[in-house]
């Protein structure tokens, strides 16, 4: 049965299923093994060593590929292992990459601390304006890597517009689709060559694993990715793969609820007198709402907001939440609240941070599956407890 004609909610459950395992168990077995016995010297059954490949990881790769509409994806130990392996697969000394300035801080660190030393350079530009990409491309550019929606202000980049540029220059376009997953945004159908996911987030969805994946229809690139993964040993582990396979079966129903909850909370925040502004692609006030409607199938479960009160009050509010958890990561069942300027984006130069809209009053929320009313009540009491309920402290207290 080909998964091409099926709906996403069906593919999420059946994409990784292979009925030819000898016992026909309804779930794919967990091959918690490092090695495989060979029938004869040089003759194996398609698996020889779990760093190279493993049947359970294979099943996850089929499942993610089915959702992405690609051949089986390549799965990695972490999202960063996926991104690092991708760059090491397509870039060499002297090469250059163009990257969204709102990209995850770990991706920036990868260039600064690792790839830069190998003679690989990158330009971080505001990709929400495609002309900036065009301007940054040089003869040495091999890949454009964008993240949309961007983290944490949800700034969007027009995938289709960027893909026209990368095609014209015959370079690769990779999209980090972690915030939306292939269910809510299909980068390859919009012209991208590569879709990258941190499976830690919505794909697993239970905060139980860390993992990453890279999907593409380019068979040569797939082969190259597997070669580099094998060489540097960034392969996903069997148990993590098995848990991820289980988690992703409920991805469609989870995403629906994440989106519904986020929309309710975003509207509530927007009406709250203590809130300066809300970033959520589903709100009419979102500057790129038209682009969101064009390339996204829903607004997603992530939002960010700024309080009118100062930085200290914002931190007090974050320290007053009871139901929401102060934690990094996103996309799980539990609502997570973060203060990007002091945590996820603390490594950035303050000036750059402010330029990206990451003020000290910005709060990021990964809306979980608790009842939206309960999340709202928690935020309400936290805002009140912090003393910023309607009162404006003003920017004088901004931490600089």
């Amino acid at each position, binding site marked *: 049965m080909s998964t091409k004609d099926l709906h996403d909610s069906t593919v999420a459950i059946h994409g990784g299923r292979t009925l030819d395992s000898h016992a*026909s168990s309804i779930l794919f077995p*967990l*091959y918690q*093994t*490092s090695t495989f016995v060979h029938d004869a010297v040089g003759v194996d059954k398609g698996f020889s060593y779990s760093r190279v490949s493993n049947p359970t990881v294979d099943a996850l790769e089929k499942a993610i590929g089915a959702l992405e509409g690609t051949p089986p994806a390549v799965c990695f130990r972490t999202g960063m292992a996926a991104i690092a392996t991708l760059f090491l697969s397509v870039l060499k000394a002297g090469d250059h990459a163009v990257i969204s300035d709102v990209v995850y801080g770990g991706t920036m660190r990868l260039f600064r601390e690792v790839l830069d030393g190998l003679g690989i350079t990158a330009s971080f530009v505001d990709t929400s304006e495609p002309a900036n990409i065009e301007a940054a491309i040089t003869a040495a550019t091999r890949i454009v890597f964008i993240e949309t929606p961007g983290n944490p202000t949800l700034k969007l980049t027009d995938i289709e517009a960027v893909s026209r540029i990368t095609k014209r220059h015959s370079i690769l376009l990779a999209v980090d689709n972690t915030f939306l997953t292939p269910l809510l945004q299909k980068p390859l159908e919009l012209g991208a060559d590569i879709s990258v996911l941190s499976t830690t987030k919505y794909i697993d969805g239970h905060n139980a694993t860390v993992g990453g994946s890279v999907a593409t229809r380019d068979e040569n690139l797939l082969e190259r990715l597997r070669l580099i993964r094998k060489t540097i040993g960034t392969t996903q582990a069997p148990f993590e793969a098995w848990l991820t396979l289980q988690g992703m079966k409920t991805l469609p129903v989870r995403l629906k609820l994440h989106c519904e909850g986020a929309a309710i909370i975003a509207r509530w925040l927007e009406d709250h007198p203590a809130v300066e502004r809300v970033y959520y692609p589903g709100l009419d006030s979102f500057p790129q709402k038209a682009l969101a409607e064009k390339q996204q199938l829903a607004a997603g479960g992530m939002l960010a907001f700024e309080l009118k009160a100062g930085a200290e009050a914002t931190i007090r509010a974050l320290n007053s939440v009871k139901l929401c958890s102060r934690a990094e990561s996103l996309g799980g069942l539990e609502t997570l609240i973060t203060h990007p300027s002091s945590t996820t984006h603390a490594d950035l130069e303050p000036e750059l941070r402010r330029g990206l809209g990451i003020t000290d009053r910005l709060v990021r929320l990964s809306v979980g599956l608790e009842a939206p009313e309960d999340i709202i009540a928690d935020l309400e009491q936290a805002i009140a407890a912090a003393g910023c309920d309607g009162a404006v402290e003003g920017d004088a207290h901004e931490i600089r």
Partner: protein
Amino acid sequence: MKFASRLVSYDPAPGDRFRPISTPIYQTATFEQEHADSFGEYDYSRSGNPTRAVLEKHVALLENGTRGFCFSSGMAALSTMTKLLRSGDEILADIDLYGGTCRLFSKVLDRGGIAVRYADARDAERFERQITPGTRLIHVESPTNPMLRVIDLRRMAAMAHAHGALLSVDNSTMSPYLQNPLDLGADIVVHSATKFLGGHHDVTAGAIVVKEEALAEQIYFTQNAEGNALGPFDCFLLLRGLKTLKLRLDCQQKNALAIAQFLAIHKDIQRVYFPGLSEDPGYGLQRSQARGAGSVLSFTTGSGDISKAIAEHAKFFRITVSFGSVNSSISMPGSMSHASVPPEVMAERKMPADLVRISVGIEDEEDLMGDLDRAIHAAMPRTQVAIGS
């Protein structure tokens, strides 16, 4: 093939097309069927699971039996064994049994009209006189827990069979590496696999091994009907733990003997119970039916308070119930593992209130002895220490 080889040389994944070196974990509830009117080898994990099948066959072969069954705990295994009996039947059991077994025998089986008699199986003639026409099963541990008494298993088997009864032996203190009750004539071997079989205290499990197919069919029937089989992940952990059974026990026994000898001559220790000591009453019998004395031993101090203080002052010996792990443990059976023994049975058992049981792990021998020595010293009343020094 020698035992060490048998522990690791088996087919970990029969029929598996990928030939993994480690058994796959079939963490699944159900199995898809090819035909709507007939079942394949597996249909539902309560009834059978490929991961469990590998473990059950492996445990059966290690115990020199034909069929093995694994359960969610040692008590689930024992409880399943008792389903071989019906209302009106009787069990004759040795007096020194694990507390949980006593609770099952005394407080659960009576509801089904099954009576249990207890007698000292070391006095075989007196024990035999307790057999009635209703006796269907004789059940013993050897060495017993916690008194480390050695029961003559060959004699028990002959006695049971002469009276048309079955002999079941709880082999948890020995493991198949040190003793194979089926070879000595027993019909059923039971294990708390939580102990030496798993060896790492990361899994709670039980096992039954039998020789006779008819018995196997009855055990399987109950396992499937009651749904108490071991889960796939726990089966995997047990398979993994079993591979080092010999390595672990070789080291644990060496440590245990050294500690037993050290305690036997320690001025503050009253008595040591360990069939590995040549002066122990069970020494000769143990040598005739087992290949070692294991690594569980008990001792008394003459004072419950001192015993308690020793347990609390020890560092490497952690206060835990259970035994057989790579970690050393220490316990006071009277108030811990055997607290559920009915008072009348307790009186008959003559278990000292100051009894300390230790399970010796794979830590360094000198560290363990030093730890016990320090704990004993710290536990002695101050006045006595002052007089001594």
